[in-house]
């Protein structure tokens, strides 16, 4: 069993990090610029983000590699840099993490299998190249996230299991439908997801992004109902973004998020962190709330 899962088995409630994309933009990443390229060109800024979450009390941090497959990188003319940019991403987070954990971030490719955009084999090879870079740079686990298609998630998990020795985690993104159920963009429910991801080899599953932490409680309950044992991770957005005078603002304040931590732990979450719009302050408050429970 990997180190992160071992801690969970010991009954530890763990805290993950907050947003990367929105944080990079604050540091000057322009729309249309490649975030992963910053691992080479702005390594100090990327390090600052990683470090700020460690300083806030996170037990683990992600890497700046969400769009790090060849499908996204080649649109910036960086298709031949997949391994290097992912390795650099992991190295930066590794340096910031010290003895804390590093989760190598893997996002969706933006290609749709059933439309014939790509073959399963092409997807597998793309994820394989990325996770090898993330392992070489010192990741402790592969964090496959923001998935909406079950087949793409399964292929990413298999590529990570079969080509690295790391722990493999996977979260999907759900929204509430008009009838009040949770579904991914491709129509997958949290309970549909559970067995497929576990069978593919995921050792921890969960949800990320979404419309805020309140919705996450229901998603965690649904996963827990489908499987009593699988460790669950949540990376929640700071609410649904609102637009104000030329700026997008994520409305959920650190206190609001922290207030729901007991509820989400009670529902069955083992690791809690943030997604878009969350800051080191959010993570500090989540840490504080989690520590007061166990």
């Amino acid at each position, binding site marked *: 069993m990997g180190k992160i899962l071992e801690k969970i088995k010991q009954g530890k409630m763990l805290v993950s990090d907050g947003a990367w994309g929105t944080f990079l933009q604050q540091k000057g990443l322009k729309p249309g610029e490649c975030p992963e390229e910053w691992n080479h060109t702005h390594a100090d800024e990327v390090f600052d983000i990683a470090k700020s979450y460690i300083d806030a009390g996170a037990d683990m941090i992600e890497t700046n590699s969400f769009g790090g497959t060849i499908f996204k990188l080649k649109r910036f003319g960086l298709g031949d840099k997949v391994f290097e940019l992912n390795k650099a991403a992991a190295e930066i987070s590794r340096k910031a993490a010290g003895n804390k954990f590093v989760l190598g971030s893997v996002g969706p490719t933006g290609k749709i299998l059933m439309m014939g955009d790509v073959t399963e084999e092409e997807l597998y090879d793309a994820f394989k190249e990325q996770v090898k870079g993330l392992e070489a740079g010192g990741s402790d686990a592969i964090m496959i996230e923001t998935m909406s*298609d079950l087949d793409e998630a399964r292929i990413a998990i298999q590529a990570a299991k079969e080509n690295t020795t790391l722990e493999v985690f996977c979260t999907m993104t759900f929204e509430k439908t008009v009838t009040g159920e949770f579904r991914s963009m*491709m129509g997958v429910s949290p309970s549909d997801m559970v067995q497929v991801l576990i069978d593919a080899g995921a050792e921890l599953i969960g949800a990320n992004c979404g419309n805020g932490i309140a919705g996450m409680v229901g998603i965690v309950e649904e996963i827990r109902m489908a499987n009593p044992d699988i460790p669950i991770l949540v990376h929640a957005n700071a609410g649904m973004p609102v637009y104000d005078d030329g700026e997008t603002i994520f409305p959920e304040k650190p206190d609001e998020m922290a207030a729901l931590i007991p509820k989400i732990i009670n529902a069955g979450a083992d690791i809690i962190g943030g997604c878009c719009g969350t800051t080191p302050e959010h993570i500090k408050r989540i840490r504080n709330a989690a520590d007061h429970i166990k």
Partner: protein
Amino acid sequence: MSELLSRIAECIEFGKINKVAPYPPNMKGQDGADELTRRALDEGISAQRILTEGLMPGMEKVGIKFRENKVFVPQVLMSAKAMSTAMVHLKPFFLSGEVKEKGTFIIGTVEGDLHDIGKNLVAMMVEGNGWKVVDLGTDVKADQFVAALKEHQPAYVGLSALLTTTMVNMEKITKALKEAVPGAVVAVGGAPVTDSFRQKIGADIYSSDPQGLVEYLNSQLV
């Protein structure tokens, strides 16, 4: 004869492309939009009737089900694929002028944003409803939208964005369109976009789902 048209509508609604297509499983081995459209033309049904009584009702049904969250992106994409397969047979009649489009709709994902799934969904739904669609692709800048609108006047313009960081570019593009072409009508949409955002940036229409846009466009026809 009209039975053939309702079968075409069914193929569009459920995304049955052609006979060999495995999707949807319960229509396996049956003729799809491809074969049935060909047969309809061979039997002398006009391209106009195939469009308005076959393709459009099928797309409308899937559009409504999508809005009600009864189907999701994959089903709509399969429907759109079935429709574009049928459209190949109808293309000559559009070119000859025998079938008339309702009007022109220009669409693109705004500057800085490379996401195209939502934009493509809207483009296909609008096209499947009998409109001519000019798809400018992704990462489209204000001057490209303006040039396209000038070229295709009169036309409606749709701006798409997935990211909170790129939707802000909609404001600049909307302003440029309205300055360059007085009376330009601009629709905005995408995951982070809301109607209050639309109001703030001075755009004309927002819909949370593609069908809402189709209904708006149709409502503008005299």
